[in-house]
């Protein structure tokens, strides 16, 4: 029978099907971090269980780590306690642990691919919803809750009903300054934040075929923001090229055999999807969000939609605009920006800093704006330095921070103050996501760069 890419990967990992229930689903790779794992280890302890396959789990500290002075002890005692728990639990159960200051430390969804832990056809979970990032490699990857983290530690399996299949096809050529982030924000704005709930998405078409791995990761990362459990892209030469020679990638003959297998990981020609959507690349502009969920996005040159024009709850929509202190039908161009955040597992990779640098090169930071540039990993930080990007950003009046999730969820000190506006390359603009009372405008690194030098929402096409 013909199968989709998703079917192929999913079905080959089902240990057992339960009548009228979920599948017992085998997990190849498991990432853990300090925030969603401690209670899972407590559970293990109280049941007297061990970690079944510690070599399949990898720990990194990222969610509440500081992004300056990482060599000093972590000041916040609660954060320090979580970091210590991750380290102790990893040691006790024999799990690789990349703590603060470790050469491989960084955001879990950045360091996984970077080190070759992620691979095509893998099943990957982590107690973080943006685990969908790893789908860029043709993996079935999704976020889980802490009870499930405990399950994976104890049994390397979770119990999951198989999601439905959706294909999103985008053909054509992307316009000037339109990045993978814009493609994703555009799709989410068309589908809403619940439009893909219950589905696993495969992205197909020219646009994704021509994308770099970094770009594909940005797109798959944001799959969760339209409600999908995950998103994936069939592996191809771009994928193999990216993975070849990474620290934990297979080597020699094993690598060659793997690539032969990975080449079979694509949707059969006549395979069926439960839902198919097609978009045109030429309809996509640089995007920006104006509300309090990622579905509230629009082309940067447009005006904020009228409440009557949106589907669903008008009250919720109005509450959202009130929170942002925006009005219907206002343009976004020219809106005040107080903070700019470039980073996160959505846009904290080397390509994102190259994009940022391409715009600010030779210009100066706007005095009115505070800018946090936070690499997704230590590796990205090193690359920024090696490629001379650090010189460009320093010259323009910016400084570089140290890796971590930072203002993406503001668990550390990197909080946007109440009432302030932040153009952010991260993934969520929920109320208070970047600090209590903070107001987030999601956008690409190019839009972030344009705002960083002008102090207002600016169309990046002006600088290209």
């Amino acid at each position, binding site marked *: 029978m013909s199968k989709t890419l998703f079917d192929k990967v999913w079905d080959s990992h089902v240990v057992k099907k339960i009548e009228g229930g979920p599948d017992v689903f*085998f997990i190849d790779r498991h990432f853990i971090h300090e925030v969603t794992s401690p209670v899972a280890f407590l559970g293990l302890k109280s049941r007297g269980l061990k970690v079944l396959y510690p070599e399949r789990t990898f720990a990194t500290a990222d969610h509440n780590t500081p992004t300056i002075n990482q060599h000093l002890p972590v000041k916040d005692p609660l954060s320090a306690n979580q970091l210590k728990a991750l380290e102790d639990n990893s040691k006790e159960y024999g799990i690789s642990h990349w703590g603060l200051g470790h050469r491989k430390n960084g955001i879990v969804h950045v360091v996984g691919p970077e080190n070759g832990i992620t691979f095509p056809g893998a099943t990957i979970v982590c107690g973080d919803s943006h685990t969908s990032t790893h789908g860029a490699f043709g993996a079935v990857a999704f976020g889980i809750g802490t009870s499930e983290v405990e399950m994976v530690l104890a*049994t390397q399996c979770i119990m999951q009903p198989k999601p439905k299949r959706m294909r999103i096809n985008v053909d054509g050529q992307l316009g000037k300054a339109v990045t993978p982030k814009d493609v994703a924000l555009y799709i989410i704005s068309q589908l809403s934040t619940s439009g893909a709930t219950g589905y696993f998405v495969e992205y197909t078409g020219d646009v994704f075929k021509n994308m770099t791995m970094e770009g594909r990761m940005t797109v798959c990362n944001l799959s969760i923001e339209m409600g999908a*459990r995950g998103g994936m892209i069939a592996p191809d030469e771009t994928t193999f090229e990216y993975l070849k020679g990474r620290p934990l990638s297979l080597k020699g003959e094993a690598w060659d055999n793997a690539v032969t297998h990975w080449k079979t990981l694509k949707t059969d020609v006549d395979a069926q999807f439960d839902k198919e959507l097609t978009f045109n690349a030429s309809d996509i502009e640089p995007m920006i969000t104006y509300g309090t969920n990622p579905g509230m996005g629009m082309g940067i040159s447009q005006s904020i939609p009228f409440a009557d024009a949106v589907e669903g709850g008008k*009250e919720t929509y109005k509450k959202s605009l009130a929170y942002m202190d925006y009005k219907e039908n206002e343009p976004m161009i020219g809106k005040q920006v107080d903070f700019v955040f470039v980073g996160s597992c959505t846009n904290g990779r080397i390509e994102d800093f190259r994009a940022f640098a391409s715009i600010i090169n030779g210009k100066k930071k706007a005095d009115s704006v505070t800018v946090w540039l936070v690499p997704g990993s230590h590796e990205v930080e090193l690359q920024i330095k090696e490629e001379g990007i650090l010189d460009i950003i320093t010259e323009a009046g910016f400084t570089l921070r140290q890796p971590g999730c930072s203002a993406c969820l503001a668990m550390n000190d990197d909080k946007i103050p109440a009432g302030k506006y932040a153009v952010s390359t991260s993934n*969520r603009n929920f109320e208070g996501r970047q600090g209590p009372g903070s107001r987030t405008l999601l956008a690409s690194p190019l839009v972030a760069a344009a705002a960083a030098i002008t102090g207002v929402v600016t169309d990046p096409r002006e600088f290209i």
Partner: protein
Amino acid sequence: MAYDKFNTLKSTAVPLPLENVDTDQIIPARFLKATKREGFGDNLFRDWRYNSDNTPKENFILNNPIYGGKILVGGKNFGSGSSREHAAWAVYDYGFRCVVSSFFADIFRNNCLNICVLPVQVSAEFAKQIFNAIYDDPKTEIEVILQEQTITILSTGAQESFDISSYKKENMLNGYDDIDYLQNIISDIETFANDMVF
């Protein structure tokens, strides 16, 4: 970790008819620093419930003594966003045992099921009836019978049935969890793992 069993719940309910209530609202990230499961209820809907000086916001529903009970009735797309199970813990720890919505985000629904908080998905029409009934009379009781998979507004007699997999239903009725199940088939899992190339 053993959980409460769930069979029948008869209770008044708290209405929260907003759409797209995300897990950052249910429990903001800055409260995720604990390494234990307990105590999250105090911070449930923290920023909607309290001002920055920690005084309660009078117009938020949880601060209105007229409404209470073990059932939370949310708007469409409840629990979107982050995978933090802390959101489900906060709901539980506050005292809710059942969340009703016309549409749940996937991970939140799973997380609830895993800690024995029952997510009941109803039609948009029925959700509206529940909201109306509660606004008419905050003492309105809602009855949820897991065995029968029914939810009833007792004051009007309106009833709807809801879906749950027979596996999860069995678990909740008996207070079992997935690890209990997986432990029983661990040798199957090991055999499977031995055949995995990667």
